[in-house]
């Protein structure tokens, strides 16, 4: 749009034999931009000049003052939203001080400004289309990258599983029993890993396309956690700790999705924090209600804290590969939280454990006020 402004300024200057011309208009974000043109060409206008033009237009609109507030300019015209156009201000400094009625020049410039307004509007649409196209290309590339990653993640356990079976066949009777056991275990383990991966991928796909729309209802977090406790205790191998929450904590949530999130977070805690209790805590903080899963493991470094929510990111590659981690758990949790208009945050210090907090819209039963974020 800067190019368009420059051209408009130059043409207006040519039209009126101006020594200098200013053309300003708002961009897509509402911030005003301007171009100044004179004999040496067109360039960006100084912010002060643009601001004066904008203020002048606002004053004229409000009826509080003349539009011609651009200092020193002999002819100033402006448009607010005209049909097909957009707000703009054009100001011209004349070489020759007018001795003929400047009204004529104003009329000429006025007509020009109407067309300029349309030109600038088109320029802005063009710019927006370009940005949208780049965005689309980025999405396509991200999708291709994702497909490549999924392909790799699925083929790896499949290779080990099929390779194990093929090896058993090749060696047949000549294989020693210990090795046979090792290979059978490998096939079984990789098959399980593949199953987990496929399930996670399907969950992610369902969450991303919102295939299972959220059944939002009032959920009492304390009661929810108590009901889930036996399952969580089993996942955590007896390391579960449930501190009692103060008061009630009612949220609007989909209990099925919330269950998936919490079990996933506890499962992660078990994998990454080999010792220490795993706490599931319900919190009230003013208007906010949240549920946290706290572990006392090695914690997560600052540079990794954003990455962990990305797909297929596993911080400890070696151990989680064997533990069957898919790298999709946290991403899935984030999507599931989003589908309930909630969010997940991570706070962690290396050596000091990690806390994953799920925040959900609160519904305070004493003062119903709809969904708050």
């Amino acid at each position: 749009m800067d190019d368009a402004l420059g051209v408009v300024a130059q043409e207006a200057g040519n039209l009126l034999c101006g020594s200098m011309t200013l053309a300003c208009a708002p961009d897509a974000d509402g911030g005003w931009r301007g171009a100044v043109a004179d004999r040496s060409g067109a360039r960006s206008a100084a912010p002060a000049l643009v601001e004066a033009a904008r203020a002048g237009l606002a004053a004229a609109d409000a009826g509080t003052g003349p539009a011609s507030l651009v200092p020193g300019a002999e002819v100033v015209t402006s448009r607010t939203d005209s049909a097909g156009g957009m707000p703009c201000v054009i100001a011209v400094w004349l070489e020759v001080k007018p001795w003929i009625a400047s009204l004529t020049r104003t009329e000429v410039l006025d007509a020009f400004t109407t067309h300029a307004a349309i030109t600038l509007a088109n320029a802005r649409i063009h710019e927006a289309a370009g940005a949208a196209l780049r965005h689309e290309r980025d999405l396509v590339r991200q999708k291709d990258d994702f497909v490549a990653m999924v392909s790799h993640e699925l083929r790896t356990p499949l290779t080990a599983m099929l390779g194990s079976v093929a090896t058993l066949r090749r060696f047949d009777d000549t294989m020693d029993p210990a090795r046979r056991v090792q290979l059978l275990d490998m096939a079984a383990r990789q098959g399980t890993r593949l199953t987990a991966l496929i399930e996670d991928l399907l969950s992610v796909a369902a969450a991303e396309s919102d295939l299972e729309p959220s059944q939002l209802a009032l959920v009492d977090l304390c009661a929810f956690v108590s009901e889930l406790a036996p399952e969580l205790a089993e996942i955590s191998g007896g390391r579960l700790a449930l501190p009692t929450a103060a008061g009630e904590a009612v949220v609007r949530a989909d209990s099925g999705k919330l269950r998936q999130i919490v079990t996933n977070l506890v499962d992660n805690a078990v994998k990454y924090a080999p010792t220490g209790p795993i706490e599931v805590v319900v919190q009230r903080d003013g208007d906010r209600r949240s549920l946290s899963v706290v572990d006392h493991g090695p914690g997560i470094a600052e540079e990794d804290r954003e990455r962990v929510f990305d797909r297929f990111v596993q911080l400890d590659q070696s151990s989680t590969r064997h533990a069957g981690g898919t790298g999709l758990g946290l991403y899935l949790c984030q999507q599931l939280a989003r589908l309930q208009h909630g969010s997940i945050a991570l706070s962690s210090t290396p050596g000091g454990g990690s806390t994953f907090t799920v925040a959900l819209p609160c519904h305070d039963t004493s003062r119903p006020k709809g969904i708050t974020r």
Partner: protein
Amino acid sequence: MTIIEEKTLRVLVADDDPDILALLTMNLEGQGYLVESVTDGEEARDAALRMLPDLIVLDVMMPKMDGLEVLTILKNHEATKNIPVVMLTAKASDTDVWGGWQSGADYYITKPFDLDELLHFIGYLRVNGALID
């Protein structure tokens, strides 16, 4: 399959997945080869330069340095440029396979690979004298 040389073939295998590495090692040793195995790209490069194996089996996606980078280094190094390299990859898009062939690999197999195919190709390399001492 006629064995031309008496010498035992030394193979370097690189893959970051320990199970796949174990399978490759097991099967190659079963063929009578001496196998050294590594789990990342840097180790693969160092081991290749150190031991000058008769054959290298190299996974494309590895930590620290990926297989294609290792391949480029080895193919440009005087001591290792004639060592046949078999690339393994789980990526199956046409551009990736083409990229693999372009990079100078002697063979390119996608996972899940057929063990028979891999072993037959290695056998082919031996019979045709491509595996030199």
